[in-house]
């Protein structure tokens, strides 16, 4: 059965005891220096202290370092990895620099999360390392991967939360301020982005590492877990931009669902004050093929 892992939000440089007390099997500590996370990430010094506290509670500790690594980051990256590699249980990465450094002695701690790039059973079988599947897959496609890949024990999935759909190195909000010659948008502040002809409000935030856009809804996979939970190693509940109290309820509901698969529990989720959507679970995105009619 899947283990629940929850993004641990670190606020005001204090241990968030409520997260340590949740029913999650593991907590994801987002690296301030090396993750894309925008909603309470840990600087290294605090992260190291917090790892011990997570372990004291008997929980799995996963460090998230999922941003793109640049050449100038390399020396600090190695220092950073040397500090955490023996301390954390797992490490989420998207950049091959991290894989390169840890593959020899810490292969079993690595979890690959390139957000979009793992979308077939053949890719899973090829990369071999424990991976998160892309969230832009249909239920049918996920089932096919789980039924046919050789390494089902090494697959995890983000089942709940606002899902990151764009990651740019550009400070897009601050550049807009420069363009209109007025400071109306701030870094590390969450805004909604609305395309002029559409109604959805996509979440957008700029941090020191770039600008991120998230789904306008909370992605949710729930009832499918009755079938899939024996195949996913971890299911991730992403707490980005969601109030702690709600996340704790969500965590409780998922934990209970994994123990009894009671359909009534979905109603509990639906009562939460969030806009839910199943993303691509019920539809498939297009592969465009064929001739071009452009000149």
């Amino acid at each position, binding site marked *: 059965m899947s283990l629940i892992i929850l993004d641990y939000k670190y606020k005001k440089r204090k241990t968030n005891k409520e997260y340590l007390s949740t029913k999650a099997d593991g907590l994801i500590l987002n690296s301030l220096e090396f993750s894309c996370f925008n909603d309470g990430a840990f600087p290294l010094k605090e992260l190291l202290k917090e790892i011990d506290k997570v372990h004291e509670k008997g929980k799995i500790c996963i460090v998230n370092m999922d941003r*793109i690594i640049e*050449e100038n980051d390399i020396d600090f990256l190695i220092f950073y990895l040397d500090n955490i590699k023996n301390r954390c249980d797992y490490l989420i990465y998207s950049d091959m620099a991290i894989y*390169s450094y840890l593959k020899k002695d810490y292969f079993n701690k690595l979890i690959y999360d390139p957000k979009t*790039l793992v979308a077939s059973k053949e890719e899973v079988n090829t990369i071999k390392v424990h991976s998160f599947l892309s969230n*832009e897959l249909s239920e049918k496609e996920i089932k096919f991967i789980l039924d046919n890949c050789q390494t089902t024990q090494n697959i995890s999935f983000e089942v709940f939360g606002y899902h990151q*759909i764009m990651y740019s190195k550009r400070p897009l909000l601050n550049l807009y301020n420069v363009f209109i010659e007025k400071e*109306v*948008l701030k870094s590390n502040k969450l805004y909604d982005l609305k395309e*002029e002809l559409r109604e959805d409000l996509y979440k957008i935030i700029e941090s020191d590492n770039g600008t991120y856009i998230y789904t306008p809804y909370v992605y949710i996979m729930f009832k499918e877990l009755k079938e899939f939970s024996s195949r996913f190693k971890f299911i991730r509940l992403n707490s980005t931009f969601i109030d702690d109290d709600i996340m704790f309820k969500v965590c409780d509901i998922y934990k209970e669902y994994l123990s009894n698969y009671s359909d009534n529990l979905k109603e509990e989720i639906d009562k939460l004050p969030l806009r839910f959507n199943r993303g691509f679970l019920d539809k498939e995105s297009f592969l465009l*093929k064929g001739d071009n009619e452009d000149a």
Partner: protein
Amino acid sequence: MLNKVELLAPAGNLEKLKIAYLYGADAVYVGGKSFSLRARASNFSLEDIKEASRFAKSLGKKLYITMNIVPHDSDLTGLEEYLRALEEFNVDGIIVSSRYIAKKALEVAPKLERHLSTQASCANSMAVNEYFDLGFSRVVLARENSIESIKKIVEKAKAEIEVFIHGGMCVAYSGRCMLSNHLTNRDANRGGCAHSCRWNYDIYFHNKKINKKEYLNIGSKDLNGLDFIKDLMEAGVKSLKIEGRMKSIYYIACIVRMYRMLIDRYYESDAPLSEDEYQYFNQEILKAENRLTGCGFLKGNISINEQLYNTRTENPTKDFLGIVLDYDEKSEMVTLEQRNYFEKGDEVEFFGPSLKNTKFKLESISDKDNNEIDVARHPLEIIKFKVPFKLNKNDMMRKY
């Protein structure tokens, strides 16, 4: 003398491919009808690829096939046969982001070089060397790298390094943008990018609209690497890549020819460009560009000069008037295929792979039956007129 570098050009069909080679590309990359992004870029059938490869080999040049989709399982049908065919046709390499496609290529078509696509957003030497160990002989770096980073990466890299120097830019790390999927259901990683980053957006805070007059635009200007070519050559970058498989033959001819001349200029002398030289190269780019350009991340951090704001980004140029089909030296008569409207009395400019920009006034023009006419208004119409200097097939005529 500076390092030899490959000038790598895009092509959306056989005509564009031949123009790219003739105008100075050392190598061309094209997409097949399967496994390639830019799905609308007139992708090549296997027969086209066979002919393209034959043409490339006849010139001693290289051909790469883009297979850079992030595949779902249903996309992989026919992969082995496709790879075998590419090898059989003497294609030089494939550009891929999927580790599975690369692995399968190594198994069934080992002569194909495997180049890692920019979709993998590779931005450091450790990652480059890891991909090299996984069988990639070349890595196309993320377009987010500065010239300083590129220099450091090349120094440590085991793989050849390829860098984009001109053309379209993603606002996001390539491969890390799902805007198109979510706004239009078209998968950007499978050839369907709707360029949603170039659309107009309003921005809200707690349901209150913040922008007043100006939309929040997040799109990027195209890349123009003119200022960085010498540095890239000095750094030891193996391949300089032009983006734009969907661009016209005129664009490809102008841009490839300009970079060919610039690279050759640096082969002859590594002295900095004079002001006149710089202006000349810059003007040549402007003659072809229909979109605004900036230097991307090459100089370091992005400024508003690299961003698009409240601008309609496509302004199709009508500068391209025709392409030379034939020239008879004895009669000095050129036969030209019309591409845009022109008329008797217009001042035009001819240029070509071995022809410097040469101004000319159209004193008299005739149709294919030698009947004198005043205007050439029909696309692809055959037009004839006398020109007192030698032209070659595939030279082009544009507005002066």
